[in-house]
């Protein structure tokens, strides 16, 4: 219980993170994102074969009605089988904005 009291004393005052530690963190973060691309044997064709899942009618129409959200289908794999899951993405997110722009463009073409 002592611990809790001592901690609440500290409050939420923001500590300064030393710049060199921040830099170190960034460097580590950069390393995490370096993955050796040659080490992976990737089948190039497989990706081009990756087609869109057939959509169920109900899913397409059943919008949540919440204008701040946009429904997306995430394509995943379970073993060799394709699976889909519906997620709600904020309408302002780049993903949603971009998708709307594309849809508009399609209509004009």
């Amino acid at each position, binding site marked *: *219980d002592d*611990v*809790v009291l001592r*901690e*609440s004393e*500290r*409050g*939420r005052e*923001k*500590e300064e*993170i030393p*710049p060199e530690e*921040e*830099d*170190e*963190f*960034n*460097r*580590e*973060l*950069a*390393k*995490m*994102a*370096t*993955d*050796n*691309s*040659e*080490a*992976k044997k*990737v089948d*190039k064709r497989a*990706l*081009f074969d*990756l*087609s*869109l*899942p057939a959509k169920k009618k109900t899913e397409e129409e059943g919008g949540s009605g919440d204008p701040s959200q*946009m*429904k*997306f*289908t*995430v*394509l*995943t794999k379970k073993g060799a089988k394709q699976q889909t*899951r*519906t*997620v*709600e*993405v*904020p309408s302002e*997110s*780049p*993903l949603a904005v*971009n*998708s709307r722009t*594309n*849809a508009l463009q*399609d209509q004009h073409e």
Partner: protein
Amino acid sequence: DDDLVLDDLKGDLPEHACSYCGIHNPACVVKCQTCLKWFCNARGSTSGSHIVNHLVRSKHKQVVLHQESPLGETQPECYNCGSKNVFILGFIPAKSDTVVVLLCRQPCAAMTGTRDIVWDTSQWSPLIQDRSFLTWLVKVPSESEQLRARQISYHQINRLEDLWKENKSATLQDLDRPGVDEEPQPILLRYEDAYQYQNIFGPLVKIEADYDKRLKESQSQPDLVVRWDIGLNQKRVAWFAMPKLESGEVKLAVGDELRLSYRGDRQWSGIGHVVKIPNNVSDEIALELRRQDAVPIDMTHGFEADFVWKSTSYDRMQLAMKTFAVDEQSVSGYIYHKLLGHELEPQVVRTQMPKKFSAPFLPELNHSQMYAVKSVLQKPLSLIQGPPGTGKTVTSASIVYHLSKMNPGQVLVCAPSNVAVDQLCEKIHLTGLKTVRLTAKSRETVESPITFLTLHEQVTNSTHHIELQKLILLKNEQGELSSSDERKFKTLTRACEKEILNAADVICCTCVGAGDPRLSKLKFRTVLVDEATQAAEPECTIPLIMGCKQAVLVGDHQQLGPVIMNKKAARAGLTQSLFERLVMLGNRPIRLQVQYRMHPCLSEFPSNMFYEGTLQNGVTAPERLRKNVDFPWPIPDTPMFFYQNLGQEEISSSGTSFLNRTEASNCEKIVTKFFKAGVVPAQIGIVTPYEGQRSYIVNYMQFNGALKKELYNQVEVASVDAFQGREKDYIILSCVRSNEHQGIGFLSDPRRLNVAMTRAKFGSVILGNPKILSKHPLWHHLLTHFKEKKTLVEGPLNNLQESMIRFNKPRQPLN
């Protein structure tokens, strides 16, 4: 409200509560797949969200989403290649539908390209953005949830992460237990006696050793594909690629031991030592197995490799410090007090000075080299500072020659790295001295230009022991000997080794190698340590405590120092070399002053900045100009320029890395220009401080190089640290850092800048953002230097123009 906090924290939190702050809203947490701890997506006092902070701090890369997340309990992975590293995963939307798929940035998302009609790869957006998970996938806890949570500070988080490395189940409460996480006692300038010395360095060496052990042992590499081979010595060699090595997580050296295991229908595991590490030609490692029986050579898949950590080098440091403390004969009284930093009257070694200070078959010495040799011979302890290209090796070899001629017994010559020992050993041999190179047993099969000088090779070639020769032949033919023959072989080998060592004038080995049991009976009154500024102090002590009366330390404390992995040990001062401490104590190093490497325009800045302007040029400008190389130097007789690149660095939270595309693309253009001018790949070096940029440049040149691919992969691209001690005709330095708010990281270390600036003989190009770099005082100086020379330029390579960019004011004055 306080009661609420107390209740929440007193009560048992569910398993999926954030290990930092205790938040346990299922929509807000993610499980680390490596350590199975849960973390939330709130930032609290860290710059990244708790989960991202944890993954980076602990170098874990895979996660599992909570069952109640929009994707359910799944482990995010690349749809195409199955990569589970969350730092390279991102969503790609379909071009004409609200469907997304998870792909890794490299190679899968990069591969689909414009030909793809379904997927819009240009819209790849990372799973981790601005250092937290996408908030529609993992929610950020609300402000009130965060207020109610455990308030953990940035400092506490760091300590907790450190603690987890030792004890996986440690909690926040454990931080307050006495004895946990105490900072070790820092190093001193002066020590009362060798006991105090040992009491301070002993724990630091232990911390570093423990850290090294944990790091190595946690690196196990599954799913290896092995190719089998037989070495010249009839031993089984396994060849395989180790992806972890290429990602820079683990460092591997020749001689390191690995355990290779097979987990298939039959169980097998065997220990071997690495005889080849990845190089420009091949990514494969060669592992020579110790035992030859039952090796599953018919199998290729399903192998796993683990590091076998060895404490040898740390044990030898500890033993050396103990010997220094308890054995009065370990060093002379004068050296003892000098090493501890006690005030002493200067002492002169009474000796007959040679008439000539150059050594046979070595180049004539210049004035400052001669002065260095002369003063070293008369002093019991001397420091020689050898700035880049000043002929350190020739000077050292000449010193060793004279020391050997003037003194009884063998001279011990050491350096921290095998490469440096080999180079010096080769030069010493040229003088005609009987030179022996002692290597670790595990390095005996490593090819080097001085293989003939190694002790084991000299044993093999010795004509004194007919019986030993027979046994060696037999062993090479059969691979193994009968146990009685093996015993005989060992006894004879030992006798022969002893004979050769006793007859030698000079014995060369690494600092750690000086602790080899084969040398334990020998006394070395004269010792020279090269690259002494790259050895941690306890490492440098090993060769000195074998009876030393006269010591010479050669190095340059203006270049990079020893690499210490553990932060606590580094903070406590283990990164300081003995050489540096002796300089701080007022022992003035003798500086070699004439450099023979760089075009005079390249040595000017380093000389002024790092060597008080004392560096003289032993080469003239015409000697360092290649008339036939048609390259667009802005000032024709000045083969250098700072190439202004304003391209943004990419901070890794965008899923990419610390890299700079503009600089990489300009690197390729410059290299191509050099090729077209007739420069060959081996003459070019690309230096960059960041691993992210290194691999990006390598890949970029492969895929985008204007000329033949094979040309580009022969160009060495490496870190500044990897280039220390070496030179190239042309050097391109890619600085990478280009951001408004953060520091310039690695580049702010003056010693690293010095090393980077002094590798080129004929010309160098620096790529960087002057606006950003000029905030740093040291770089401000450098940029001003380029500007004054009218070599700060911008624009396309074939039409470079002087840059008119205004520098920033440096943040703090340079002292």
